[in-house]
């Protein structure tokens, strides 16, 4: 039995770690898209966060300051995107793609001297007796704080969008920016905040890769995580909890296929490597297929430029 060598508790624990960077980026992009902006620069903002987080964490030697720096790094790129698309009215798709390419190139330059260095360790959160529970303790309660904060963030975003007035205004801006403007809401200001939040989240996701999951810096180390986050948002129908389920599914398949590779299963490695992408997309397509547009929940003004005509 090939699964014999895989411990489910370890698998679960590894899954949460593997899913966290994607989930962080996805929840940020979800907010951005809910406000009606399509930022395809997630990959670029992630790698920026990975690089900045790494550099800042290594120099004074504190992972927490590193994460803060990563969020700032992601926000700087996001601010550039906001300047281009909201103030200068450039095309969102083209600007987002450029942002990704720019981020990849810039970080290759900035990170040159940091290849091969080990970052300071992020301590695991001490949950006392909880982490000693058989199976559950190993699976859920021996992580670093970022894993838990990410789950809390998903809950916070869900609550924000569903129950707060600010969240409702943000959904309104994303649904019909002309109507929101007519009612006197500041479409661009709302979108600016959303874009910056998305950048910070993507940056944190990137830093989680370089500081914890991989624990090292290499050029282009995000290898498409940003794109998976983008796809997750769409297939999760812009619903936070569903995005989390999708991210965990993706993380689970990634970990599982790595274990299967290690266990020497006789399936070509290429198939195993592509399986997380295929399975995640397939499952999410099945969930969201066969529904009316309204229940798909797509923001009505997504990717439409807003130009206030008064």
């Amino acid at each position, binding site marked *: 039995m090939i699964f014999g060598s895989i411990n489910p508790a370890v698998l679960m624990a590894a899954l949460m770690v593997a899913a966290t960077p994607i989930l962080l980026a996805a929840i940020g992009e979800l907010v951005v898209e809910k406000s009606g902006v399509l930022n395809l620069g997630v990959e670029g903002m992630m790698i920026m966060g990975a690089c900045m987080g790494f550099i800042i964490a290594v120099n004074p030697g504190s992972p927490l300051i590193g994460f803060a720096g990563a969020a700032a790094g992601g926000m700087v790129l996001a601010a550039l995107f906001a300047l281009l698309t909201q103030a200068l009215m450039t095309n969102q798709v083209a600007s987002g793609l450029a942002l990704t390419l720019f981020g990849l190139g810039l970080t290759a330059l900035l990170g040159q001297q940091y290849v091969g260095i080990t970052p300071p360790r992020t301590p695991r959160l001490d949950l006392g007796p909880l982490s000693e529970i058989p199976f559950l303790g190993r699976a859920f309660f021996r992580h670093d704080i970022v894993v838990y904060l990410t789950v809390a963030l998903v809950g916070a975003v869900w609550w924000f969008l569903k129950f707060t007035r600010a969240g409702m205004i943000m959904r*309104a801006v994303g*649904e*019909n920016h002309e*109507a*929101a403007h*007519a009612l*006197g809401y500041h479409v661009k200001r709302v979108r600016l905040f959303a874009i910056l939040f998305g950048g910070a989240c993507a940056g944190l996701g990137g830093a989680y890769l370089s500081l914890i999951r991989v624990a090292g810096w290499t050029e282009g180390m995000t290898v498409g995580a940003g794109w998976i986050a983008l796809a997750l948002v769409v297939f999760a129908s812009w619903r936070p909890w569903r995005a989390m389920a999708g991210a965990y599914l993706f993380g689970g398949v990634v970990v599982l296929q790595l274990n299967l590779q290690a266990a020497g299963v006789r399936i070509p490695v290429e198939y195993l490597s592509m399986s997380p992408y295929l399975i995640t997309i397939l499952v999410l397509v099945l969930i969201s297929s066969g529904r009316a547009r309204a229940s798909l929940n797509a923001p009505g003004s997504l990717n439409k430029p807003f130009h206030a005509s*008064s």
Partner: protein
Amino acid sequence: MTRTTLLKVEGLSKSYPGVRANDDVSFRIAEGQIHALLGENGAGKSTLVKMIYGLVRPDAGRMELRGQSFAPGQPSEARKSGVAMVFQHFSLFDALDVAENVALGMENPPPPRDLARRIRTVSEEYGLPLDPSRLVGELSAGERQRVEIVRCLLQDPKLLIMDEPTSVLTPQEVDILFRTLRKLAAEGTAILYISHKLEEIRALCDEATILRDGKKIATCDPRERTAREMAELMVGELLTPPERPARPRGDVVLAVEKLSLKSANPFGTSLKEISFQLHAGEVLGIAGVAGNGQDELLLMLSGELRAPRNQVRLRGQPVGHLGPTGRRGLGVVAAPEERLGHAAAPDMSLTENALLSAARRKGLEQGGFIDWARTEAFARQIIARFDVRTPGPHVLARALSGGNLQKFVIGREIELDPDVIVVNQPTWGVDASAAATIRQALLDLAGKGAGVLVISQDLDELLEVADSFAALNEGRLTRVRSARGLTVEEIGLMMGGSGDMQVAHEAAE
């Protein structure tokens, strides 16, 4: 009338590059008054109310609300002062529910549960029942307007601005709206009512301010003026009713025989055993309350809905199986009711839109290549002949006001020199002078020997242009009769069943 003045507007002016939208406009509205703001498309009505609502800042002039200086910098300030507005294109959010939509238009919305209760109370009180938990995307146009109105009412407005509220409503819904507005006025709320439907204004309003080219032309009591007089004030010239020279009736150009066709829209009305003949030089008017099969009739005639081959004939030749391009080639053209999105592609320029329907008949395309020079010349020709007000043919269709775009899409079809033209609501939302131009062009086309089929809900329009007359009722078409000597009462009877529907509708309310 000696009621206290609520809003005083003095010398408001606003310019945009190249346009003086408002020029020294002054008027007053008293409390509890229903005040009409009248004007052609582009006369500056919308700019004026946007200034009152704080969406646009005036270049000059001042406003007073209850004797105090009033200069709202943004809509929330206007709302705080008691000014509310119902927009022409609804400012609603499809994916949000009724309660959320209402909350978004309020400054300090109460907690969701209280809000839902207040929506129910207020909406029932004014005869506009609404379920707060429904998604707005699922509501009809009339219900959406209720959401807008209830949103305003919950804020206890002193002044309610309504921008062409009836353009999307059925006659029954218009009645309900008027009852609500009269009740509000009786309670002391002033209403600023923008429209260019003169009969409506005469029925509803106490006073009217007429704008032309951004300037105030007159203030009058609409009940003491005829619709004709007000129309002439709006346009600034004498209106000549369309000329209808007597002309011989030609051969049958289009014949439809016992055609039943299922609607493609699940909420549409299927056509049931439609038969009629259209002669060369004849204008056939088809009346009916909206939703009785008008859209389907147009789609069937334009070729968007295919019919059995032999049941639609053009000069005896079967064309039922042909699509729109095939029929255009043979000389049957159509202009649907929905101008943006159906008659015209919103994000394409007027030149491109001209090409879309005229490519074949005007030879604008050769061997798969587009002759842009000729296409643009054709677009310019339409713009010039139908007085479409636009900077040029390069402008996007969506940038035109409704009436101007209507002139363009109807003009585009008329310029194709068709044998048969089918139009649905040709002058919907179009001002008086433009409507006259369109009607005259349709009559001229008939004079040249084309068959013209006009589907309209405006009975006055049909009586003005039609030679013969029929009515649609639940997908059935009455016998065609001559329009000469036909009275409005007889037409009402032809529209049949609609009287009963009204009663049923009211019972349901």
